[in-house]
């Protein structure tokens, strides 16, 4: 403000412009304003060209409440003089700001673009906060240069700045967190490996060295970011390789966790793989995958091998492939039975000697009912040997005749292949046993149950009481 223009200044100016004396000008100027003030009362409105409009506005009386005391007061109506400048005067006065026009604000897009610009600049500069701040302050400065200084704008800009700094901090913390995560994983790995044998400690050392290398590279990364522009591709490649190695390590760790649960064999296998992976991981990218595949194939092969082993052992147990004694006795029995049948068919003479020989065998079996299975086998094996020897002495035909004679004392099975010639042993039925099982156990087949039933005269073979004494027959082939 360069000061006040008093009435005297106006008079001097008017006198100069109109080429009249100052006295005339003074009377004129004074008269102008008196006319305005006088005429306003009557006319209510006075328009003066190029200056504006004076209006007298009636204000109605109103009630107002004193905000402090709450007293209701009545404000009297009054007249108010309003001056509205003429458009010519407005434009003339507003000349310095004439170039400005009202701008339509699209608030959403406008602010988003501004934020985006700030973020991109911050991303480019990352650590150089000063530069970013300068860039962000630029719009504000521009506004201030033009004297625009909008309230909303001035509020927005500091928020953006704080946001940018926050995001920078976030990025840094994220980096730190990733580094910490890696170290944590490595520690976990070492812990799990320490549980196992000392064989695995060598790969641990390798891991740690690699980890150191990784951390060194990561330390280098922000420094190289400082350099910007020129070293950018290198930084990118380094970071990508680091990320890839991280991924490899995570895979390896997952594999470890899975395989540690299996067996020590797989652990050894895996440590070998792990060493190879650790050595290859730094050099080439394709190899770890290949070794992973190999390990997968090895796992599958191991599983198949175990499966085959299990089935094989089951079959061996089922068919008793590795128990030759059973087969030998069976075969001997079979052959001797054939021999016996041959002898009985060919000859029908009666011999007392084999009978005497036969009885002790049956007696011994009867004395030891507990060891039935083994003793019986032994008896069966020993008996035919004796008979074979006696057949050579032409005496076993007599024993057969004697046995047939003896068989008449016992009830016989009709159309049976065997004759019941005596009571081999007496078995007391327990809970859970059945005649079929007894037959299976003592004679090797369930078909022999009919001889048991016949000998004991059981009417209903399906209903046998527990504790009943079952006589097991001594059988001989017809």
């Amino acid at each position, binding site marked *: 403000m360069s000061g006040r223009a008093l009435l005297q200044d106006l008079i001097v100016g008017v006198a100069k412009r109109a080429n009249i004396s100052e006295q005339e000008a003074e009377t004129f100027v004074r008269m102008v304003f008196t006319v305005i003030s006088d005429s306003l009362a009557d006319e209510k409105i006075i328009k003066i060209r190029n200056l504006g409009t004076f209006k007298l506005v009636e204000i109605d009386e109103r009630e107002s409440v004193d905000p402090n005391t709450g007293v209701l007061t009545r404000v009297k109506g009054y007249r108010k003089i309003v001056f509205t400048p003429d458009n010519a005067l407005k434009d003339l*006065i507003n000349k310095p700001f004439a170039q400005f026009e009202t701008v339509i604000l699209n608030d959403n897009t406008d602010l988003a673009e501004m934020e985006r610009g700030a973020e991109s600049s911050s991303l480019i500069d990352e650590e150089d906060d000063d530069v970013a701040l300068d860039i962000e302050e630029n719009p504000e400065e521009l506004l201030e240069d033009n004297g625009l200084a909008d309230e909303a704008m001035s509020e927005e800009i500091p928020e953006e700045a704080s946001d940018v700094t926050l995001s920078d901090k976030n990025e840094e913390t994220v980096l730190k967190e990733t580094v910490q995560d890696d170290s944590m994983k490595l520690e976990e790995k070492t812990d799990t490996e320490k549980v196992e044998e000392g064989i695995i400690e060598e790969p641990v050392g390798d891991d740690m060295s690699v980890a150191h290398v990784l951390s060194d590279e990561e330390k280098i990364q922000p420094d190289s970011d400082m350099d910007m522009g020129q070293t950018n591709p290198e930084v990118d490649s380094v970071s990508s390789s680091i990320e890839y190695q991280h991924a490899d390590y995570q895979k390896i760790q997952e594999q470890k966790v899975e395989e540690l649960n299996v067996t020590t064999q797989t652990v050894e296998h895996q440590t070998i793989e792990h060493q190879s992976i650790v050595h290859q991981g730094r050099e080439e990218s394709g190899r770890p995958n290949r070794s992973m595949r190999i390990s997968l194939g090895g796992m599958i092969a191991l599983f198949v091998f175990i499966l085959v082993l299990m089935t094989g052992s089951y079959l061996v147990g089922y068919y008793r492939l590795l128990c030759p004694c059973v087969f030998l006795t069976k075969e001997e029995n079979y052959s001797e039975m054939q021999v016996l049948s041959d002898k009985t068919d060919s000859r029908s003479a009666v011999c007392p000697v084999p009978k005497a020989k036969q009885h002790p065998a049956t007696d011994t079996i009867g004395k030891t009912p507990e060891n039935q299975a083994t003793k019986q086998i032994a008896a069966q094996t020993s008996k035919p040997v004796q008979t074979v020897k006696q057949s050579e002495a032409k005496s076993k035909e007599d024993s057969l005749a004697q046995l047939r004679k003896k068989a008449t004392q016992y009830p016989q099975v009709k159309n049976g292949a065997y004759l019941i010639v005596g009571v081999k042993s007496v078995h007391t039925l327990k809970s859970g046993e059945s005649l079929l099982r007894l037959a299976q156990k003592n004679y090797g087949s369930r078909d022999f149950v009919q001889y048991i039933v016949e000998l004991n005269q059981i009417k209903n073979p399906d209903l046998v009481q527990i504790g009943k004494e079952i006589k097991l027959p001594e059988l001989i082939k017809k």
Partner: protein
Amino acid sequence: MNNKDFVSELSRRLGYSQKDSSALLGALVAEISAQLEEDRIVSLPEFGNFEVRKKLERVVINPATQQRMLVPPRLVVAFKPSAQLKDKFNEEA
């Protein structure tokens, strides 16, 4: 009362011709404008002050369309009537 009426009234009181009065009035208005343009307060005793005020830019919202608009800063002429002028009208009322 428009400009023509005002000039006629002025010339009647002063005894000047309407032409002279109009020219003198134009000179007066031009002088006032010039003073205001130079950022001076035109102070008239017993009448009031003309002054230039600076309006800051602001955001206005069109209530019908909710459209936000940025109104640029501007300079406006303000007239502040003197106490005597105010009293004159209110006494009469």
